[in-house]
């Protein structure tokens, strides 16, 4: 401050008031000026040109606004396919359900293209035998069940898309997924019952909180429980919007984020999954699924048709190469999942939201939930070359024992999960009230979801746990603004 600047006591109140007003304006303007660019890009255009501002129950169900008329038509056709309810053959419409299935339409699980609930029909359980001892790549068991002798001898009645690098061998008689429903006259593979185990813990400020974890009871058709030693993993369906953009992120850019040996010593590794591409018949980068165990949306959708609904398709056909849906339908539904828009954010001008964003970064959440990334080339022009804000690196991270399912999936270990994209997170309860967070829907609130983080995220979790209540509230409000 200028030492010559002096105020007489008489002038002081007037100048002080003016100064205060100027200060308030300056303080008010400064973040706005620096944040203005963000408001138009990062904060609002979460999905680049595919963004739609829609904060309603249909927020995840909007076609990207940058589709051509022809593409909108294909998107709508895919939308109908995504909504089609399958029934037991023979039937005049939508025949092909089962014989074993978890649910009978895509939307029945991905309700309004969002999450599902941890309840029957929505929650599914993957199973496998403990990993074999020898090296993984040499143990590739199959590309798919259609040409997999090992599998087809187990499942005379149903094709199942099961690919494993030998570390998730199918369970004889059960395969790799427990379909807990069956068409009339057949018994489902198992009945699955979920009970919740509650535990109490406390924030640093002494406020107690409850966490629940699922206890999954699996009963086989013979009335006996699943033998001990079989690995199980319960999952709820994740949202499906914005996936075309994730598919369009250049592989090199994802790999550049990886640090499997943690060479930079920040406690965060980040490991790409390498998974089997059924069409290309080779190992490629995994992007989709809770452990990034699917390489692309075509395969992800085809596997969901056959595994979740028992509907054979051109990628996973019947033994005689026929299928219950045709390539046109599979392509349309794939296009639909590639071209759902990303919802734009809300309450971004709110200072609490902005403070929450800073806290999110300070707590190092953004080390894995990477805010921004660019997409590259993609056959669907609408998703190509976009600046997007998905809050994920699409890499695997060790999330600690609390969240571990103990079931490996390709290169993902039993305690590794793919960083979940956070875009649209604040719409979870708008789209599907009462739904949960994390891979099995155990977290009833965003606070619980954060508090479950362990492993590489333990330190970030601790920062949150020891924050003042107002800071915790701000951080959660930021998440709700996504």
């Amino acid at each position: 401050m200028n030492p010559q600047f002096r105020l007489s006591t008489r002038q002081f109140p007037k100048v002080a008031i003016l100064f205060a007003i100027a200060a308030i304006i300056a303080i008010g303007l400064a973040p706005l000026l620096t944040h203005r660019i963000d408001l138009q890009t990062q904060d609002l255009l979460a999905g680049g040109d595919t963004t739609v501002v829609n904060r309603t129950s249909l927020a995840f169900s909007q076609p990207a606004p940058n589709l051509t008329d022809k593409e909108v038509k294909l998107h709508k056709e895919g939308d109908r396919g995504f909504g089609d309810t399958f029934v037991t053959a023979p039937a005049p419409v939508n025949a092909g359900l089962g014989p074993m299935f978890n649910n009978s339409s895509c939307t029945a699980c991905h309700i309004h293209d969002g999450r599902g609930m941890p309840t029957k029909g929505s929650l599914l359980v993957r199973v496998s035998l403990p990993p074999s001892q020898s090296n993984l790549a040499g143990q590739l068991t199959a590309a798919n069940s259609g040409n997999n002798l090992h599998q087809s001898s187990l499942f005379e009645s149903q094709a199942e898309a099961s690919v494993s690098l030998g570390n998730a061998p199918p369970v004889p008689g059960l395969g790799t997924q427990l379909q807990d429903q069956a068409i009339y006259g057949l018994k489902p593979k198992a009945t699955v019952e979920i009970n919740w185990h509650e535990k109490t813990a406390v924030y640093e400020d002494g406020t107690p909180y409850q966490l629940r974890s699922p206890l999954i009871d699996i009963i086989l058709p013979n009335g006996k429980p699943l033998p001990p030693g079989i690995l199980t993993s319960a999952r709820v369906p994740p949202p499906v919007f914005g996936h075309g953009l994730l598919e369009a992120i250049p592989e090199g850019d994802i790999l550049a984020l990886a640090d499997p040996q943690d060479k930079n010593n920040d406690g965060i590794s980040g490991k790409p999954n390498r998974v089997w591409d059924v069409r290309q018949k080779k190992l490629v980068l995994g992007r989709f699924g809770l452990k990034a165990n699917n390489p692309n949306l075509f395969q992800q959708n085809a596997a969901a048709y056959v595994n979740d609904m028992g509907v054979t398709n051109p990628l996973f056909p019947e033994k005689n190469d026929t299928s219950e849906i045709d390539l046109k339908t599979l392509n349309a539904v794939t296009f639909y999942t590639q071209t759902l828009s990303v919802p734009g954010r809300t309450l971004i001008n709110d200072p609490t939201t902005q403070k929450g964003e800073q806290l999110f970064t300070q707590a190092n959440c953004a080390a894995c939930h990477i805010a921004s990334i660019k997409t590259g080339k993609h056959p669907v022009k609408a998703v190509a070359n976009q600046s997007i804000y998905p809050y994920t690196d699409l890499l695997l991270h060790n999330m600690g024992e609390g969240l571990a399912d103990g079931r490996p999936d390709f290169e993902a270990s039993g305690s590794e999960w793919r960083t979940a994209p956070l875009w649209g997170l604040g719409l979870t309860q708008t789209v599907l009230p009462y739904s949960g967070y994390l891979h099995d829907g155990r977290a009833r609130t965003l606070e619980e979801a954060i508090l479950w983080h362990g492993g590489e995220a333990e330190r970030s979790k601790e920062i949150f746990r020891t924050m003042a209540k107002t800071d915790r509230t701000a951080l959660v409000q930021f998440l709700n603004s996504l």
Partner: protein
Amino acid sequence: MGSQIRFPLTINLLGLTLVLASMVSGCGASGSSSQAISPGASGTTLAVAGSSATTVRFNPQILRNFVDNVVVPSNNQFAQRADVLSGAIAAFTKAPNAQTLKNAQSAWVKARAAWEQTECFGFGPAESLGYDGSLDTWPINETDLKALIKSSDKLTAASVEKLKETEKGFHVMEYLLFGTDKSRQAKDLTPRELELLPLLGADFAQNANRLADAWSKGVEGKPAYRTVMATAGSSGNAAYPTVQAGAAQIIEGMLGSLGEVADEKIGKALEKKDSKLAESRFSFNTLTDIKHNVMGSQNAYIGTFADAKATSLGISSYVAQVNPALDQKIKQQFEAALTALDKVPEPFEKSISDPKATASIKAAQEAVNTLQNTLEKDVKPLLKSV
């Protein structure tokens, strides 16, 4: 709900500050995309074509009115008619004759009319708690249903509750009450069908009542869902953190329902000329379903419900204040859509493949599309900046 929800002054100030900041920095928001999604920056001031800028405040009472005068009474009416249907089915199966069957069929049609009017607000607990699927899944699983009827499996309330969604609800009852071409007579029903029907009716009524309760009272330890929408924009409401989101929910629900009518219920059937794609094909009720969908959206727009005597206050009131001509246009387009649907010859299920009826079906589809476009292009932008 004593306090009025007002748009926080700070938001308006921030909006204003933002404009100033843009001018100072010399690079004001440019490009239509950033303006189109400007969040609340324009406050409540709306520029109306043909007049000077008008300031109209969006009355949050519109949201409360929507839940209390439209959603809750519509769901209650449906629950009450589901009870009547369940009772009529029980009376029919106890004493199957032409009259009791006719009563049950007519109760089905009435329940259907009430349900189809709720379609544009079928969000929230209807989906989360599985009621929508249990009440109204299409198509039915005829193969499994026939096998179940043929079997000697024990039929109980508990076993029916566990049936797949494609083996219960509206369309399974429709199939059993009307037959596949509305020619069913009381004597056609087998003893097993007569045993199954009342269980389906009771399961149906139970789900209908739970849905109504989920909105008005709350179920499974959860608060009444009416509160979630009615308090849109108040602090702590994570589902609808802004009044805009609440207002948008009403419009999006209407658009979703009208889109389904135009693209699927009419569109798909017309495209394939196949009556098997008509939703209520067993009872020849598809066209009536569609009309009630449109009426449901009309209720949501005006903010009233057929039998409600309360003064209506709805999205319509807001639009009328901002742009009276637009409000009139929308009201007329609702009437035009319903009139066009009335001109489609019944049964719709046969008209689909009748070349003489094609023009009238296309005209009805067009009328619904026109309404949809007006809501999308003219009303949605208004509500983005309330």
